[in-house]
């Protein structure tokens, strides 16, 4: 599951393409892309296990997923930039800091692997997943529900930005699109933490997007749009590392990309129809459902470490249940996003029909 660590000793095994894979991977890519286009990240968490479920070897699945991530992020960022949702400068600063975070995260992973083996590493990854997603996802969900009840959803972030802007340690950075001015020394650690999380659970955006919203003071639109720039930087550097070792299976990458480039643009279009809180709501929902999915796996890893007596049959059931819940997270979010879009389009159509009627009334 670790997103970026390249194991030079891993065996390169390229799976044979089956008709099931050629149908399943673009579909999974579409759903993952839809989520990425909407909240700036996500999708990656289900693509790697999704590929592995079709018989693709772990390292090849991680590498091929990574290789589809940066082109998708590029297309998504270009689309979101059209709506004014991307702060390229902020994305590059956070992206480069995230790159360093990824390298440190890999070292931590390797140390855990050498100390406690694969089961220990899996337990660490799932533990981080559950802890981060529970705290961050819970907070975002609470704020999303509060924002939903307010007409001005930007009140809370502005308050929280004050302390970040008070941290007046030069150099101070001005991010025009995000409309904020914060210290370099605050921005870099946030990018670093994003990278650390990406190296651990493959989805750095679960830290990056909330950090940009609640600490740097960007809107949900700009936070989620800018995350695509960070994903591009991390995906590009991660792909290069994996490709240097020859693990990228371009056939799988291009199959996922086929669906995800439709999805990411649809997700990006969707953001133009929804209110600020909807992005937070989708992000929190996916975080909490994924958290449940990883929680189901903790007994399995504890069993592997001989800390819990678990029958193989029950371990298998928990493993399948975990994967099903993860796929469910994608489907639930797809339904929320498409539902919000349909409502937004209907509301706009009603508005455009209403305006000429008013004009006619005032003219007469």
């Amino acid at each position: 599951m670790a997103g970026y660590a390249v194991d030079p000793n891993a065996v390169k095994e390229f799976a044979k393409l089956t008709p099931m894979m050629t149908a399943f991977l673009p579909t999974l890519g579409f759903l993952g892309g839809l989520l990425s286009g909407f909240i700036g990240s996500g999708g990656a968490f289900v693509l790697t296990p999704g590929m592995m479920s079709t018989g693709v070897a772990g390292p090849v699945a991680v590498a091929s997923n990574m290789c589809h991530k940066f082109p998708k992020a590029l297309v998504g960022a270009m689309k979101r930039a059209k709506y004014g949702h991307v702060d390229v400068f902020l994305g590059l600063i956070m992206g480069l800091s995230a790159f360093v975070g990824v390298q440190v995260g890999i070292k931590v992973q390797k140390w855990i692997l050498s100390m406690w083996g694969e089961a220990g590493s899996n337990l660490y990854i799932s533990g981080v997943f559950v802890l981060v997603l529970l705290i961050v996802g819970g907070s975002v969900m609470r704020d999303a529900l509060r924002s939903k009840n307010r007409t001005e959803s930007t009140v809370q972030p502005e308050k929280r930005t004050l302390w970040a802007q008070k941290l007046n340690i030069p150099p101070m950075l001005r991010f025009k699109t995000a409309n904020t001015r914060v210290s370099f020394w605050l921005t870099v650690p946030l990018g670093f933490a994003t990278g650390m999380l990406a190296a651990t659970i493959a989805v750095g955006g679960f830290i990056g997007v909330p950090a940009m919203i609640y600490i740097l003071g960007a809107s949900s639109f700009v936070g989620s749009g800018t995350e695509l720039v960070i994903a591009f930087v991390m995906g590009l550097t991660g792909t290069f590392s994996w490709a240097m070792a020859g693990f990228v299976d371009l056939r799988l990458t291009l199959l996922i990309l086929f669906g995800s480039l439709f999805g990411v643009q649809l997700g990006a279009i969707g953001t133009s129809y929804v209110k600020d809180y909807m992005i937070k709501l989708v992000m929190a929902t996916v975080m909490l459902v994924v958290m449940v999915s990883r929680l189901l796996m903790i007994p399995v890893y504890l069993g592997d470490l001989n800390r819990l007596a678990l029958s193989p049959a029950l371990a298998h059931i928990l493993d399948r249940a975990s994967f099903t819940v993860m796929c469910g997270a994608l489907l639930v979010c797809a339904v929320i996003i498409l539902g919000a879009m349909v409502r937004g389009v209907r509301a706009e159509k009603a508005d455009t029909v209403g305006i000429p009627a008013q004009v006619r009334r005032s003219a007469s």
Partner: protein
Amino acid sequence: MADETKTKKPVGRLIGFAVLSLGLYAVFFLNADMIQKFFSAGGVARAAGITLVAICFSLIHGNFAGTFWDVVGVKGKKQ
């Protein structure tokens, strides 16, 4: 008045990118085993090649996908 507000759908652009995208996919998958064998050797040059191939597909197929949504009428709300 109603006709003036209607924008022309970029059908020609869609067909152009569809042909390019399908062509790229066809060329790749007809030679997939050979291309995969080449890139699996690893190294800096091949890694650079993989990133270039991925960017090339993303730009062409991405334009096709974007134009597709335009043509079917799924467009972003004007800000």
